């Protein structure tokens, strides 16, 4: 307490003079003192905390309240702030419709009819918007993936699309742009499906208000970025890499793949490791490691496929923002043009990388 008063005095002193606080580094004599609270304070607080924890566990978690139950809640201001926060222009009606759920409307009309008031509220729910938004979302994501991953078969594009449009991913995005406070829904805490529906409706509302181009960029910046740092090969890899590799090489007119043991260590021990190299007509393609020859062979085939599809660990980082400026039209073009499936994949057919 004494230390606080002393520093406050010094601040006041410096405040009234024209000297900056940062010029001199005089040693401020800060003495840390023990806090002499009464003997019953700590045990009381401890007991209260213990009881709170038990009560919370019984209720299935600590009580959470919606932001609107706290002071200074202005829904109109929040809506305005939301669109400004994202840097987008929304039609007021579209945005409000996107955030209103059917469950909320039903609850409100039921509540009003209970009171006896006839509801002539013109609420519009987000069912139609969310449907349209879902389609737009899929379209924009597919366009981006096909423009960036030109060498990749359609199965992997589909897997990446499914990952990006999955409920957990979209819920994460929706939460982080603050839809939790803005949504009008009957359930609280809101379910995953509610968040996802709202987000899709937001995308559709944006397309309506500012045009598809803005909505495309919005989806790229917020949804597709969830792919950043994710190993795409974890999302999908072919079941039989050796078979698929042989088929691809045959289609391209190259020699059959030949697997050779490059190096090994500790083959007799439990920590044995084998490195198998993959060659086609004596040309090195890839190498794979493993604890047994079979695993190493499969990994070599997988690495070769990754090399063909340009999805190695060392692949280029995904482009976003300004890096996409020149290829937005190309992305729009590829939205309805699927990549080659794995069964027909051949390197001559795939386009060169767009970026």
């Amino acid at each position: 307490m004494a230390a606080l008063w002393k520093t406050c005095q010094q601040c006041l002193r410096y405040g009234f003079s024209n000297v900056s606080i940062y010029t001199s580094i005089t040693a401020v004599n800060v003495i840390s003192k023990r806090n002499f609270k009464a003997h019953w304070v700590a045990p009381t607080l401890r007991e209260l905390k213990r009881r709170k924890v038990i009560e919370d566990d019984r209720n299935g978690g600590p009580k959470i309240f919606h932001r609107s139950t706290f002071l200074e809640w202005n829904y109109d201001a929040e809506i305005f702030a939301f669109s400004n926060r994202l840097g987008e222009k929304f039609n007021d009606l579209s945005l409000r419709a996107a955030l209103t759920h059917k469950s909320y409307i039903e609850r409100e009309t039921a509540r009003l009819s209970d009171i006896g008031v006839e509801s002539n509220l013109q609420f519009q729910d987000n069912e139609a918007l969310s449907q349209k938004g879902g389609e737009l979302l899929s379209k924009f994501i597919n366009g981006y993936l096909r423009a960036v991953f030109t060498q990749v078969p359609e199965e992997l594009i589909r897997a990446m699309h499914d990952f990006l449009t999955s409920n957990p991913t979209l819920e994460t995005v929706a939460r982080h742009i603050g839809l939790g406070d803005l949504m009008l829904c009957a359930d609280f805490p809101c379910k995953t499906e509610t968040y996802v529906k709202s987000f899709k409706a937001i995308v559709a509302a944006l397309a309506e208000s500012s045009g598809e181009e803005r909505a495309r960029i919005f989806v790229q910046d917020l949804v597709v970025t969830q792919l950043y740092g994710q190993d795409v090969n974890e999302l999908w890899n072919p079941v039989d890499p050796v078979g698929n590799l042989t088929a691809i090489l045959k289609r391209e007119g190259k020699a059959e793949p030949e697997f050779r043991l490059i190096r090994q260590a500790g083959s007799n021990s439990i920590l044995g490791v084998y490195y198998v190299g993959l060659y086609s007509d004596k040309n090195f393609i890839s190498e794979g490691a493993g604890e047994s020859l079979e695993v190493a062979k499969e990994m070599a085939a997988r690495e070769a496929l990754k090399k063909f599809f340009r999805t190695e660990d060392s692949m280029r980082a995904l482009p976003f923002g300004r890096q996409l400026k020149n290829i937005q039209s190309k992305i729009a073009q590829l939205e309805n043009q699927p990549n080659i499936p794995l069964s027909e994949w051949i390197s001559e057919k795939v386009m060169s990388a767009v970026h």
Partner: protein
Amino acid sequence: MSATKRVQQWSTFSRMWYLYDAQWQDPFHSAKVLSPYLTGQNKPIYHPLNDCGDHVVVINSQEIALRGDEWKKRVYFHHTGYPRGASWTLAWELHQKDPKMIMRKAVFKAITSNLVRRTCIERLHIYPGSEIPEEIKSNLSGQIRPVMPVPKRLQEYSKEEIENYPKVFDFPNDYILR
């Protein structure tokens, strides 16, 4: 963990098996070279608690070369723990009894004295000759360069090499050497 990451983890933490030929090498200098491999200090993933040491197979430990008169002068002390249990054994005597001991003791001392030293020395396999059991031989994955280059003896040169060797001068055929 994806398949790629699992395989990457496995190969990063795998143990190498090195071969070292101790023919005419100084065991103490060799020990200084071998101990980093046994402790794993040659690896970027090294940590004292990581247990990432490699195996080293030493062959021809019978043929090691000690410097100067160390064979006669170097003494190995041992005490059984019982009264009058002290013994001093000269290097040549110890080498006669067990040709692997000198190498092993040298490497043991070269490894820093800590609790992992016993584990590391377990991974040192010494053989007096050049024969290695098949189980060990199949594990080998690398070789460590000998500390001193092994000179080539005159008997190991072929007749053609001797005849074609560049000479400044040679005795005439009918000259008789005394």
